[in-house]
């Protein structure tokens, strides 16, 4: 069984301790690399500001993630149902991932202004792809014998999708969602860099321009913790949704 939360915490504490000792012992300029203690005290002093900006980023991120997941799932299902659609759309979906997001984001700002929309759209643009690809793969890996059996029960395409293909694709879909969640953190920050008045990405630029390295590190720390929590939240939902998996010795 898992040994729990302690090994990663201990490792993290070790790295932070080494960092602190190194910065102090070597007399590094705190503008180049602030010691963890400085970052921590910055966090404590500016909790409220961090929280309000974090909440803004979280909102953009979640809206974008949910939209991206829904779009990805729908595209995946449509590509599985209509083969011609898969053939036609797949290369274009790949193409969307080849476009550098920082190049697209300013246009989104031009269209939608300094609102939540361009950030959520950036997130959704990055999120939908892994979900769509994993949904298609998951849906097409359903046991053909099971489909044949359901057809002898008079099942139509809808029954087959709902009762056989989607449940057996769930593990793959959740893999896609986990990747999407990790990407959405990056997506939200990039979205904010291009045009925003608040949010963690905005804060980063702000601190960077003013040379407040401790603030910059503190912002990164908040973002990291948020991302990790969100990532594991997806895993938690997955374990709940696929609770049967621990009994499935063989794959169907």
């Amino acid at each position, binding site marked *: 069984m898992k040994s729990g939360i302690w090994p990663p915490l201990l490792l993290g504490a070790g790295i932070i301790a080494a960092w602190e000792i190194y910065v102090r012992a070597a007399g590094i300029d705190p503008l180049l690399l602030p010691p963890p203690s400085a970052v921590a005290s910055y966090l404590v002093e500016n909790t409220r500001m961090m929280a309000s900006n974090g909440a803004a980023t979280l909102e953009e991120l979640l809206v974008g993630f949910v939209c991206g997941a829904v779009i990805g799932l729908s595209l995946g299902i449509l590509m599985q149902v209509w083969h011609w659609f898969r053939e036609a759309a797949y290369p274009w979906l790949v193409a969307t991932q080849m476009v550098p997001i920082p190049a697209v984001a300013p246009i989104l700002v031009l269209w939608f202004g300094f609102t939540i929309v361009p950030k959520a759209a950036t997130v959704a643009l990055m999120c939908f792809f892994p979900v769509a690809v994993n949904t298609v793969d998951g849906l097409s890996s359903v*046991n053909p*014998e*099971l489909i*044949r*059996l*359901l*057809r*002898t*029960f*008079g*099942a139509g395409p809808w*029954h087959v999708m709902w*009762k*056989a293909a989607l*449940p*057996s694709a*769930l593990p793959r879909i959740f893999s896609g969602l986990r990747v999407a969640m990790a990407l959405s953190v990056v997506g939200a920050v990039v979205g904010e860099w291009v045009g925003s008045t608040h949010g963690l990405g905005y804060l980063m630029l702000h601190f960077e321009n003013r040379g407040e390295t401790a603030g910059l590190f503190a912002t990164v720390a908040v973002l990291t913790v948020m991302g990790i929590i969100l990532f594991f939240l997806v895993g938690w939902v997955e374990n709940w949704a*696929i609770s*049967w*998996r621990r*009994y*499935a*010795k*063989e*794959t*169907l």
Partner: protein
Amino acid sequence: MTMVPTAMKVRGVSRTYRDGTRTVTALEGADIDILDGKFVSIVGPSACGKSTLLNLFCGLDKPDAGSIEAPVLGDGKLLGRVGYMPQQDTLMPWRTVTDNAAVGLECLGSSREAARQRARELMERFGLSGFEHSYPGQLSGGMRQRVAMLRTFLCGRKINLLDEPFGKLDAITRASMQAWLLDYWQENRCTIVFVTHDIDEALFLSDVVHLMSPRPGRIILSLEVDVPRPRKYGEVVTSVHFNELKARLLQSLGRQA
């Protein structure tokens, strides 16, 4: 003697399919009559087209030539009206035993709760009491097979096709499942078409054994098994008559090989 209606009538059926660059003739000119309410086996060497024949019976596939009719079912397509139990148990690991058994009725239009209720009523008869909420991964091979069989029989079809249902079970489990199946069939008469490559199993269970030739498959012998029921495995398989019947089947097979 009254005329028994015909459950399934097969005339001159051929089926060829492509396997990569090769064309494989699985069936050629197969004729069978299956009488209503009978327990019928189809026996033959591996890859003789038994499964192809079952696919045609349940409407999953269409013959290239010849006709397949199910007079007891009336007119209309076969798909969705003939019960089928595939060789793999194809239980869904995300559904409990009850929900797996209920899936057939659900597809046929029952509500989930009504289908579950019907499944629960038969749990005991299928030896699954106490496992209603278990997942397939927690069951033994024999129990999985019972769930798959319950799923098929729950639909209450007049004709049920069983594709090597006991093929992967150990000998002891297999014998008890055979006895159980005969009991169940005697209580709930329906036509059973049982595919196997085990001659003893076929003779012990069936009213008629249809023997298939190696590919391209045809029916080369239809042997009536005039052993009175109820049958006791130990008595039947050691009897002189049983061994005479077995010898006839083996002879016919030998002539083909």
